[in-house]
């Protein structure tokens, strides 16, 4: 067992992990942050997407000990108190949520797109969402939602 020190959603944690513990397990089992979902467990579906030091990662492919000193944002950390993140608002407004299982990952992927690109094109949005699989929506309303999130950001400025 080793101790890993990391910051999750703005809060510092010191957690005992063993060598095979994945970031996904650390978040769900040790910290109780169950918004991050396990889908395939092999980095294909994106349900376990979190943001690590500004980059989206599949938390099933990151080992916990690799997170020493890292800043992690999970779906629980994207909203500001009671105020939803533009990506969350936009997904609701555009009806881009169906069963909901992929949605935490999709929202974080959306946050990563709009954080880096103020005017993403359709193609850039589709590429940005392509690491997250969804079986319900057919993605089109999600693409609309990302455009809407961009607008919400602009309106707020």
């Amino acid at each position, binding site marked *: 067992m080793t101790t890993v020190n990391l910051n999750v959603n703005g809060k510092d944690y010191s957690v005992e992990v063993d060598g095979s513990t994945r970031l996904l397990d650390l978040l769900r089992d040790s910290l109780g942050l169950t918004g991050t979902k396990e*889908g*395939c467990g*092999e980095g*294909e*579906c994106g349900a376990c997407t979190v943001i690590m030091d500004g980059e989206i990662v599949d938390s099933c492919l990151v080992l916990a000990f690799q997170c020493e000193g890292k800043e992690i944002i999970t779906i629980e950390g994207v909203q500001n108190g009671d105020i939803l993140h533009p990506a969350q608002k936009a997904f609701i407004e555009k*009806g*881009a949520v*169906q*069963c*909901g299982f992929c949605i935490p990952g999709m929202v974080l992927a959306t946050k990563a797109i709009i954080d880096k690109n103020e005017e993403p094109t359709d193609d850039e*949005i*589709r*590429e940005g*969402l*392509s*690491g*997250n*699989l969804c*079986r*319900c*929506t*057919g*993605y*089109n*309303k*999600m*693409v609309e939602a990302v455009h809407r999130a961009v607008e919400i950001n602009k309106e707020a400025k």
Partner: protein
Amino acid sequence: MKKRGIGYGCTFYGTGYGNGFPDVSVAEAELNSDGKINVYVGATECGQGSDTIMRQIAAESFGSSVEIINYYSTDTDIMKDSGTAAASRQTYNTGNALRLASEKLKDRVIEKAKDLLNLNTTVGLKIENGEVFLNSFKATKISLSEIASSLGDEKLREEATFVAHSTEMDEETGQGCPYWPYTFGAAAVEVEVDTETGKVDIIRAASAQDVGRAINPELVEGQMDGGFAMGYGYAVFEDLNLKNGKIVNNRFTNYLIPTAMDMPELEKIIIEDPESTGPYGAKGIGEPVMTYVAPAILNAIYDATGVRMTEIPVTPERLLKALKESETK
């Protein structure tokens, strides 16, 4: 070389279990002590939007907005069986049961209002926005919360059952009317086939679906996008690859489904032709919206290349092989 072609596919699809199998939905509606309407429905929400549209159906019965509805679902301890969320049946079957239950409750609420307002008949009484009033003299009115608080310990709760019309098929001849109602839909697809790589891209696509009546058009569109993506995957990506009865492609690394980059923009055409037996004219479209997609894509591949693919998915390997065979013929 890149070749383009256009294809169409269409479907008719029966709602519910069909073939004489008992297809029964039960729903309940109750006046809550604060004048809101409690609705108990055993319909499972698996992303298709039943929680939303059941609320809408119940609210419509009371001429009110959805805020008036306290919705309870998927708890066998406090509700009756509404049957499975399968066979595209919840909107039609359970929607019907809920509409019937709501209307029975509404009749009792109006009966109570008649007594409380000292009227000699319920004729002319209407419900709107949480109030029962006399349509010809709107000042004569009472709110649902006033009615609820006049009841004391009495509970106004009504249950209704809807049994779908379904007859067995003749096994010998295949004749009969196993489903009611049927729903109709069609897709049009333009593909671009790369004859060197065997890759099939969708350039343009449209999907048209008869929904009877769209209780929630946004949810209908969501189902149409989702159904198209599934049909697209079914046609060109998704290969279980059975070997000796075992699934070889049992992971997302080898069982490929469409991503946001594969999915084309989809023109969605909602066709409303109210179904006389449906709740406010509605029919379910969970499954039908995917059924016409693969045939449309395969027809478009045929239009583009002259090659009729008879096996799905049309993977690049399969398509290249078929193109080669057609050249040597």
